[in-house]
């Protein structure tokens, strides 16, 4: 036990079960949007431990955070990279805290890392409290008011021209950006639109009473219309496939493929009713 980080030594052993319980906690609301980044989320989780931040269980906190991220990912919530980076770091910290501490090396000990994290959280909480007190002060223009119709006092050294650094920078940045934005011609993207693809296929439907290899048909179409195969094959294929699927759904076409990556065959659906037992 002597190798264990002091932080872990202070922890009661039952902490190990926390992650399961935490994930089942009804109070754990998954709303990443409500958090101002991973540190904010950690601070919120830490507050649920209802102890002074300096006595917080970092191990439990790491597990809660990781389970939060798990849940969020299970719900397929988009997580900003920041949250994942923090999760990776906490997973690392957790493993460091659970494993025997290696002999003293260059790296800070797991206990040091945990203490540093606790201090960071404490600092954020402190500045938050300060921000709150600042916000509740009597503010000019909201709680107290200055003279509505001020008169100009005669005094030497008063600048004739009013200009703030902010105005100067805003003017410069906007002007430079405006000027540098060259007239940009968007390169004409060579695509076969879905509408066009449908027209091509509609023509095919007229011809193909029997199974026809679609690739060959499209190649002939591209050649006859002078479309460059090197740049446009992909778009022609993609749009045609989308259009085909749509037409199959509408009952206009039949589509056949004998195996993965095998050629696709298409034919006009015959007038006979669909062979489905309804």
């Amino acid at each position, binding site marked *: 036990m002597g190798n264990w980080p002091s932080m872990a030594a202070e922890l009661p052993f039952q902490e190990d079960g926390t992650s399961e319980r935490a994930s089942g906690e009804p109070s754990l609301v998954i709303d990443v949007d409500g958090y101002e980044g991973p540190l904010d989320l950690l601070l919120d989780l830490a507050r649920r431990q209802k102890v002074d931040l300096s006595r917080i269980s970092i191990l439990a906190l790491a597990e809660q955070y990781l389970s939060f991220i798990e849940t969020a990912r299970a719900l397929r919530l988009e997580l900003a990279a920041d949250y994942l980076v923090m999760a990776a770091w906490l997973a690392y910290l957790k493993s460091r805290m659970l494993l025997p501490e290696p002999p003293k090396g260059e790296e800070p000990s797991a206990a040091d890392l945990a203490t540093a994290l606790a201090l960071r959280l404490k600092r954020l909480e402190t500045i938050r409290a300060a921000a709150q007190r600042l916000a509740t002060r009597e503010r000019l223009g909201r709680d107290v*008011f200055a003279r509505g119709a001020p008169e100009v006092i005669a005094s030497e050294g008063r600048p004739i021209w009013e200009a703030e650094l902010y105005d*100067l*920078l805003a003017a410069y940045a906007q002007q430079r950006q405006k000027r540098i934005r060259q007239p940009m011609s968007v390169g004409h993207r060579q695509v076969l639109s879905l509408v066009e693809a449908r027209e091509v296929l509609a023509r095919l439907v007229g011809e193909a009473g029997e199974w026809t290899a679609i690739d060959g048909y499209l190649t002939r179409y591209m050649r006859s219309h002078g479309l460059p195969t090197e740049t446009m094959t992909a778009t022609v294929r993609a749009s045609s496939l989308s259009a085909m699927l749509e037409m199959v759904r509408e009952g206009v076409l039949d589509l056949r493929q004998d195996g993965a990556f095998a050629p696709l065959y298409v034919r006009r659906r015959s007038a006979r009713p669909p062979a489905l037992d309804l």
Partner: protein
Amino acid sequence: MAWVEAEEDEEGWDADQALARACRIVEALLFASVQPLSAQELAKSVPANVPIERVIAELEQSYAMRGVTLQRVAGGFAFRTAPDLAYLLAPEAEQPRKLSRAALETLAIIAYHQPVTRAEIEEIRGVATAKGTLDILLEAGWLRLRGRRRSPGRPVTFGTTPAFLDHFGLDRIDDLPGLEELKGAGFIEGRLAKDLTVPVPDDDPGLHDDEDPLGDLFTPLDDGDAS
């Protein structure tokens, strides 16, 4: 403040309390208002049992001898500096004016790109610089004529002065934020054009390699003489 002094009998005391409160309210309203306020407007905020005329009279009397007096103007009431103290106020003409957009742009370009000639400013801005714009900036003491560019026409180069730094609260010219910082502070938005660069500004008064001394100030200054 006579109105907060207690009276002997209850009712009189209550009435004085109400009047005192009404006076505080009218005082604050008139102070904060952009325009003069009419008696009707003022009455809306005052306890119903206090006649507004009484409040006005009280305040007029209370401010009569002070540095600021309650005056009837434009059909309403407003606080105004006592006429005998008008000398403390600046004449209207000296009201500080906002620097025009063109002047701000020109000043900023000179600050970042100095030493810079008028033609170069125009090239960056993409428009001709009105004659008055540079005059205003020179007059404000923010610009100085640095020297002459060693190029055809020997155009004057402009730079900023210590008074410029002083006015804009800069310790030194390269405290002006760079591209990344302009972006970081939200001044530049969206994708950066590849060729958008912001120079490290330098107001060193020593002449650059391509600058000559101003020389004879009586020689026409700008490239104006070339035309």
